[in-house]
């Protein structure tokens, strides 16, 4: 906890950018370099840069140390990243995320992931069944923007809707999408959040989480989240920029508090790629919406109640967890 606020990180990745998992072709190398550059841009300057390698396969113990020992995180969700474009076993493999949750069941939830182009629709549906029923996935993560013409649309009734239906059949209520923030030479337009409007309308029993504020589609994602009651925004990596680009974060956060509502905003650290979350959490606790934005744009001030919601309560409610009960239960669990 930080300042007595329960921290529930909605997205960490036990990722694998080792040479062994990365293909040797030119696009794969460009893709990996792009991921590494984006990661370093989000990372706290001086976060042991000289001592750590980021192009590797992380162990669950290293991630635990970074997220739960070196930072005041109470719970987190380990998410598969089904980027197959340049990696043999996805960017953040199924096995590694499941291993993290299995090793630390009190603190980590497993979010599965699959891709209907890479695995074929039948294969992806089978993966949903397997990851939910056998591996205990509590949510599913998808990534629809890919290079080499392999992107798909979230509102594709033949390819995407069966995924949502299968999730619902398995009792999964939270569907997550990486949007914006393309890696390598992936097409940006495939990562617009606009193709999530139809699924949000057609599957009101599901909740859709959009990550990264779909940058650079900020206007679009703010509109979608404001209008669709079942669309949430994961500030995954976005709040990390408060240290290097505070004004941008203040403008974005102020607008989201005003137009979307604090109940829909979720803290996500993006560890390990973005480094350990400790400095970002402290910076967020000290963040304020400055007077000129409050006066000039009408953005409301960020309050302690907002911080409590963003850092954990919102995601706990979304995942159906009793936050106060978890707080009590974890009080006796050693870090």
């Amino acid at each position: 906890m930080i300042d007595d606020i329960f921290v529930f990180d909605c997205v960490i990745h036990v990722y694998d950018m080792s040479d062994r998992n990365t293909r040797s072709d030119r696009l794969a190398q460009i893709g990996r370099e792009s991921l590494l550059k984006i990661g370093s841009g989000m990372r706290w300057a001086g976060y042991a840069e000289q001592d750590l390698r980021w192009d590797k396969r992380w162990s669950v113990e290293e991630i635990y140390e970074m997220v739960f020992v070196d930072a005041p995180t109470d719970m987190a969700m380990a998410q598969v990243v089904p980027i197959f474009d340049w990696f043999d076993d996805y960017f953040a493999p199924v096995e590694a995320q499941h291993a993290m949750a299995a090793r630390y069941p009190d603190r980590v939830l497993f979010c599965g992931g699959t891709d209907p182009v890479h695995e074929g629709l039948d294969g992806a549906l089978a993966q949903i069944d397997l990851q939910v029923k056998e591996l205990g996935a509590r949510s599913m993560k998808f990534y629809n923007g890919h290079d080499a013409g392999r992107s798909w649309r979230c509102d594709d009734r033949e390819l995407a809707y069966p995924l949502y239906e299968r999730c619902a059949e398995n009792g999964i209520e939270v569907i997550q999408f990486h949007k914006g923030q393309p890696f390598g030479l992936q097409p940006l337009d495939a990562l617009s959040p606009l193709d999530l409007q139809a699924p949000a309308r057609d599957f009101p029993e599901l909740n859709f989480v959009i990550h990264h504020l779909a940058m650079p589609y900020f206007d679009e994602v703010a509109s979608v989240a404001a209008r669709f009651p079942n669309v949430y925004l994961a500030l995954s990596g976005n709040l990390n920029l408060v240290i290097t680009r505070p004004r941008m974060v203040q403008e974005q956060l102020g607008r989201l508090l005003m137009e979307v509502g604090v109940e829909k905003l979720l803290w996500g650290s993006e560890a390990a790629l973005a480094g350990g979350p400790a400095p970002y959490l402290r910076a967020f606790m000290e963040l304020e919406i400055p007077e000129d934005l409050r006066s000039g744009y009408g953005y409301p001030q960020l309050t302690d109640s907002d911080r409590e919601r963003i850092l954990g309560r919102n995601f706990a409610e979304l995942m159906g967890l009793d936050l106060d009960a978890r707080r009590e239960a974890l009080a006796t669990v050693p870090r």
Partner: protein
Amino acid sequence: MNAAPARVDRNALLARIDQVSAAIGAHAGAIELLEVSEAGVVRLRFIGMCTGCLFRPLTMMGTVEPALLEVPGVTAVEAAGTRISTEAATRMRHYLGDAGPPPLPAVQARP
């Protein structure tokens, strides 16, 4: 010590919400009730054309909030998309005027 807020008559509140929605309906929008807390805080959702509209704070402060605060027991009114800074709220009150907009008809319970 402050007295406990009067319990909100849900039928009266819903009747007032219907009235407000009828007024907002001129813009093809409406409001719907999400919940009422023990303390009398009413949480609403804007629907129809109001959803995502940038004028929601104005509609809230100028029309919705004063109408619902007239319902006995209602202490505050909240809705996503209407939260603004104190600076903006002060400015809005100034331009709306102390008297506020014309009052809506008195609350009537649903039949």
